[in-house]
């Protein structure tokens, strides 16, 4: 039967990562993820706080810190447990993939793009910086291969 359950969230980690070992031996990490609502017309803007559960296969979850911006892909799960005689129902996100964004990661990605563009557009020899010299050395084999081939553009 065709059934499908997928959720994609981008938000801010709003708790520390709690690690817990299950009786089966596998470890789960849980953290809170705060996602701001988009203020649609007439709607009150607010935020939603989701509890995200990661099995040990999702290793990125181990190194998350509070305040970090993160993408979570997974599914919605309901679960209930007894609490002082009352039944408590919780909705959690079982993460299949966690991808942290951080300021450092963003800046290094930009630097990477800048380094790549000169190589493709012109000869690396024209770029005088040490950084580009290094790239030239590393990509020397790549350049030679390009010259011998009939590149159509």
């Amino acid at each position: 039967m065709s059934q499908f359950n997928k959720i994609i969230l981008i938000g801010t980690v709003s708790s520390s990562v709690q690690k817990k070992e299950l009786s089966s031996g596998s470890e789960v990490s849980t953290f809170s993820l705060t996602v701001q609502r988009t203020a649609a017309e007439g709607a009150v803007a607010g935020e939603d706080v989701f509890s995200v559960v990661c099995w040990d296969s999702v290793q990125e979850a181990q190194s998350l810190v509070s305040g970090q911006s993160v993408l979570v892909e997974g599914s919605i799960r309901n679960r209930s447990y007894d609490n002082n005689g009352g039944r408590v129902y919780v909705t959690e996100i079982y993460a299949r993939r966690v991808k942290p964004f951080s300021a450092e990661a963003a800046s290094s990605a930009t630097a990477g793009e800048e380094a790549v563009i000169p190589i493709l557009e012109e000869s690396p020899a024209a770029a005088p910086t040490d950084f580009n010299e290094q790239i030239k050395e590393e990509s020397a084999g790549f350049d030679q291969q390009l010259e011998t081939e009939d590149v159509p553009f």
Partner: protein
Amino acid sequence: MTNYNKVFLIGRLTKEPESKVTMSGVNLSRFTIAVNRIKKAGEESEADFINVVVWRRLAEVAAQYLKKGQLVAIEGELRIDKYERNGDEREWVEVVADNFQMLDRVSAEMPVGESVG
């Protein structure tokens, strides 16, 4: 800061949708869908019951065409609203759907729960 919240679900309605009009005259319709979990061999089949709300024109369509047992695809945003009742803090979790599509037809001639000969 980027924020993003998108949900895709396919499941069956557990009951008829409940429709109403807010005090400001806006249509809304609420229903619950059962979404089966991916089953491993030998496991019993389990499902998550997820509340869905649709507004305005979609609410009219839901009220008119959605029936118990119907398979629907839903696209929306997951929301958790906190409220207090008798001193306890509780949560109301629902998907605010901005789109849905019926994947099969449960016609009036074939009521759910009755075998059709």
